[in-house]
């Protein structure tokens, strides 16, 4: 199983992929995960490959082999099309962060849906950011989206909640577990 998580530096993409990896290890799979650090905090694109199976060799997902693409930002969903095939499920958080050329008024924020539709028909928008804000924890959008992702994966809810509890600081634990549970009920559109 190959999950590609994408977003923009500062959205908590890497923490979300850390949590997913830990859960899959506890569930009994071999897990590998790869991402690029360093410049992530500077507002650049972030992607994290998470792979789990009986045995995983490459930490990178081969092209066209992504099972689920979970994007924390709309435009970032369209940036990794080489990994997407007709079987890929794309889940997009309804949230836009303008890149520099859009900020400077040089080009519009692109319409990504047609780009995605060329590859796959399994495209879902979810209101993760809105839900996180509604819950009073906008920074917890990553865990909200994990909640939604959990509905497509094998491990039971109890394992997710136990793992999140172990990995997050006590201060933000309750708020995030609430976010996770609500995320699992998010409607796919």
């Amino acid at each position, binding site marked *: 199983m190959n999950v590609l998580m994408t977003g923009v530096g500062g959205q908590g993409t890497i923490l979300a992929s850390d949590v997913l990896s830990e859960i899959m290890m506890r569930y009994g799979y071999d897990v590998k995960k790869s991402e690029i650090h360093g410049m992530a905090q500077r*507002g650049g694109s972030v992607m994290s490959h998470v792979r789990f199976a009986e045995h995983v060799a490459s930490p990178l997902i*081969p092209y066209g082999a992504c099972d689920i693409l979970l994007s924390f930002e709309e435009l970032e969903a369209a940036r990794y099309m080489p990994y997407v095939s007709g079987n890929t499920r794309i889940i997009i958080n309804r949230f836009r962060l303008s890149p520099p050329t859009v900020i400077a008024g040089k080009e519009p924020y692109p319409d990504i849906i047609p780009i995605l539709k060329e590859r796959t028909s399994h495209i879902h928008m979810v209101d993760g950011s809105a839900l996180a804000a509604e819950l009073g924890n906008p920074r917890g959008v990553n865990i909200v989206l994990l909640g939604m992702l959990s509905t497509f994966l094998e491990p039971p809810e109890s394992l997710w909640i136990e793992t999140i509890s172990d990995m997050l600081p006590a201060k933000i634990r309750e708020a995030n577990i609430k976010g996770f549970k609500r995320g699992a009920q998010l409607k796919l559109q």
Partner: protein
Amino acid sequence: MKKILSGNEAMARGAYEAGVSFASAYPGTPSTEILETIAKEYKEIHSEWTPNEKVALEVAVGASYAGARAMAIMKHVGVNVAADPLLTLPYTLVRGGIVLISADDPELFSSQNEQDNRHYARFAKIALLEPSSSQEAKDFLKDAFRISEEYGTPVMVRTTTRISHSMGIVELGDVEAKKEPSLERHPAEWVMLPANARRRHPVIEDRLADLKKLAETTPMNRMEMADAGLGIISSGVAYQYAREAFPNASFLKLGMPYPFPDEMVREFASRVKELWVVEELDPFMEEMVKALGIPCRGKDRIPVCGELNPDIIKAAITGQAAVKPVQPTLPGRPPSMCPGCPHRSMLYALRRNKCFIAGDIGCYTLGFLPPLDAIDSCLCMGAGINHAHGLSKVFGPGNEKLAAVIGDSTFYHSGITGLLNLAYNKGAAVLVILDNRTTAMTGAQNHPGTGVTIEGDRTTNIDLEGLVRSLGIQWVRTINPYQVKDARAVVKEALETQGPAVIISKAPCVLLRTGFLSGKPLVVDQEKCTGCKVCIGLGCPALEFRDEKAHISAVCAGCNVCAELCPAQAIGGAV
């Protein structure tokens, strides 16, 4: 016990299990988290950030003189800085194990080049270990120390970004006791003057022969025989990619690729029909295979440039064209300086003075990007000031406006000697030290100017202005870069001195959240905004231009630079 660890975390764990006493490093992507993990998780090990990689290696060597296990950690280009001690170190006697970790960056995710540091192992004539997973990253660290002491050699462990920053499951091991230090004298083996070094050179050559025998038998090098039609020699993360691409092929997996296990390679080659060498960057192993007179394929099809992946390897070996599915053209999202970054206004002030701006390595290198377009060179750590000096000597004073920028951490790393040269040889250039009180690009590490060590102890805090003056610079100003009009005037004055001048641009990195800035977003009075785009020229991610007007988003840190520049005085604090 099992844990998911990144390659860097695993190497830190490996050092701990190996009973290491001392670890030193200068931060550099992708190596930084190794020492950070040691300082955080394994406090039994003394850890320290050193001003540069040469110091890191030399202090580690000093620690190993006591019989303690010691290691130095750096990114690939850092080894260039440490190359002087590295190439004589093998001549000397090893007491405590001494290991150098080199973290290479194929694809240049965060580097100025993609040099292949495996060449350093051959250059220095030392053992080279190359892990392919987090598990091996941990285990090989222990092997490295064992080999170092058993064979009396420094050992280089070479990782790459995809090993250092990938995570995998690691079975933790037992922890060896640290060695008791004792002071001994070995002048014949530690004083490398010609008479001693001449005697020690044959020791290196004999040792290499012994290490070659080890490479033939170590479990780090192994044949994994399957389908004999295709045999692949590989190492590092490339091994994992090749395994993914060709699960049924036979493999010669080399965890210790130098010295090269000639006999094992000969045997493997004789047992497979078609032989390929799959490695990232240079044909390091391939050339050694060919030197044995064994025909093989490799870099005639596999790219030298950039990182590999399973698809590239599959296409190369099957003879297909490398298929990279078409990626739609989308607005890029390159990294940029943060909202409220103190570098932005200083670079703006420099650019408005129309001078040549020699750059250096750090966040400010991002000032190269439009709209700031304020960096004219970037070669390596500490080079900028020297570029400006060289230019000034060719043009002579007063003919061209020449400036250089360097961060505080980079200045302590290798800028001091350049500034000393500027003063000594009376160059006509302005050095701007962007003193943001941290090593920002690699994630905010302490350095000799911050007054705190990696272990959290208070320590001496350099008086930067005093240091600059002591090097012989008479014209020095310390300024607040957020007062952008003043900054521009000071740059103008400095350029007019026609001699060595230094501006210390002092304001903390916004990521440190010191409270230096209000953190309260400003607002644009839409009535007053004329749409002149002066503020947009700062390239701040908080400023957006739409509907012919400027807008400020919630990511604004309240630095007020755009407000000071706005000709219509349309920007102010929230009402």
